[in-house]
């Protein structure tokens, strides 16, 4: 246990990187999800079909394999086609992979949420003379946001847990730091258990956060009870 104390600074640093990775992937993942949902609802058949194909492929492959493909594949791609000797950092590879996976699931959730906004609202907004941008930001998005929040909570928790995969390609996240410490101190159980506890805490914190968002998003609605 004393060893845990010696390495606590290292572990905290790793936890910071884990959170950084999770939030960066969340931002890009949300954007990808919105773009994917827009493509799935597009009037162009080929765009719709392409969006469904990509999101189905991404949801059918293990996240770990996607990470390996992104990390090693993107480096290879850059080096062979652009004649560079650039190597992709594990962080960038991780963000690309995690954001792609998150976006694939989010696009389906967003699509459902946007379709669930009553049509009359759009017609009313249009007849008031609101522009398309105003309709999107002031009418559609707040209501879709309310509908998809519970699913977003789930996806966020999965994303946070999936960040641990990046330790395999060498990013010094919490799990990797723990592995290193475990090798030096010969106390693997202590360090891996500590990582598990930190993940439990991080996820426990995100539940009240989402409960707050949901309460805020639902303030115009009668409570279901």
């Amino acid at each position, binding site marked *: 246990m004393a060893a845990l104390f010696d390495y606590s600074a290292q572990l905290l640093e790793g936890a910071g990187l884990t959170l950084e990775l999770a939030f960066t992937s969340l931002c890009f993942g949300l954007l990808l999800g919105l773009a994917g949902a827009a493509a799935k609802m597009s009037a162009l058949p080929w765009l719709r079909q392409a969006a469904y194909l990509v999101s189905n492929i991404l949801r*059918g492959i*293990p996240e*770990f394999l996607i990470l*390996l*493909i992104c990390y090693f594949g993107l480096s290879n791609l850059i080096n062979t086609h652009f004649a560079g000797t650039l190597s992709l950092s594990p962080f960038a590879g991780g963000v690309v992979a995690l954001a792609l996976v998150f976006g694939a699931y989010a696009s389906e959730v967003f699509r459902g949420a946007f379709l669930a906004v009553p049509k009359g609202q759009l017609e009313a907004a249009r007849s008031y003379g609101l522009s398309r941008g105003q309709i999107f930001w002031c009418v559609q998005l707040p209501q879709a946001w309310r509908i998809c929040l519970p699913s977003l909570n789930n996806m966020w928790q999965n994303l946070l*847990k999936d960040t641990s995969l990046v330790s395999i390609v060498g990013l010094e996240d919490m799990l990797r730091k723990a592995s290193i410490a475990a090798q030096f101190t010969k106390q693997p159980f202590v360090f891996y*258990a500590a990582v598990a506890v930190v993940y439990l805490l991080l996820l426990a914190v995100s539940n009240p956060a989402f409960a707050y968002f949901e309460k805020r998003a639902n303030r115009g609605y009668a409570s279901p009870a």
Partner: protein
Amino acid sequence: MDQLASLLSLSWPALLDGLWISLQLLLFSCVLGFALAVPLAVARTSPRRWIALPCRLFMSAFRGTPLLVQIFILYYGLAQFEWVRDSVLWLLLDDAFSCALLALTLNLAAYMAEDIRGGILGVPAGEKEAATAFGMSRLMVTWYIVVPRAIGIVAPTLGNEIVLQLKSTALASTITVLDLTGVARRLSIEAYTTDALLLAGLLYIVIAAVLSLLIKYGEARLNLHQPH
């Protein structure tokens, strides 16, 4: 595409071996996980707190931490203790395959138990009352009425968990199990390309599609008595 085809013709025996290991992991973890999840869900909904609480803790712990961390704790972590290495448990933990299988099973059991718990709560009270009125004991009501109904209610969710579990089996490769991902990793390192990884991804998609079809068929059979 040509590269992928030539890779397939060269290394299909290895990939097939890996695929077989992945499918074994999937099948065994699903059967064992489900068998564990049903009693776990029943115990979790028990009105007695000393039965419900440990189940709740088990489920939160396994649902709230990454599977990779669980695998590492079981495979590397527990080896720290001498009494574990001297116990019978070591037969299970020393071998990478059985250790990965254990982690996958416990993980899936926690997720499935949570689903089944939702189903148990969703069984109409009238059905339980009717069974009690017929003179069934509490054990009989649980075993013959509540559990089958709950499983029928959550069958689509359980089917989803099975498809997701296929993706989880890929993590077995992190502790040297040569499953489909493990073989693909080895091939891609040998050849300095990602072709093998792409090929493995393709195989996963095909299996996931076949699994979904099988599960849809199974669900239709399971809920035959329900009107459509």
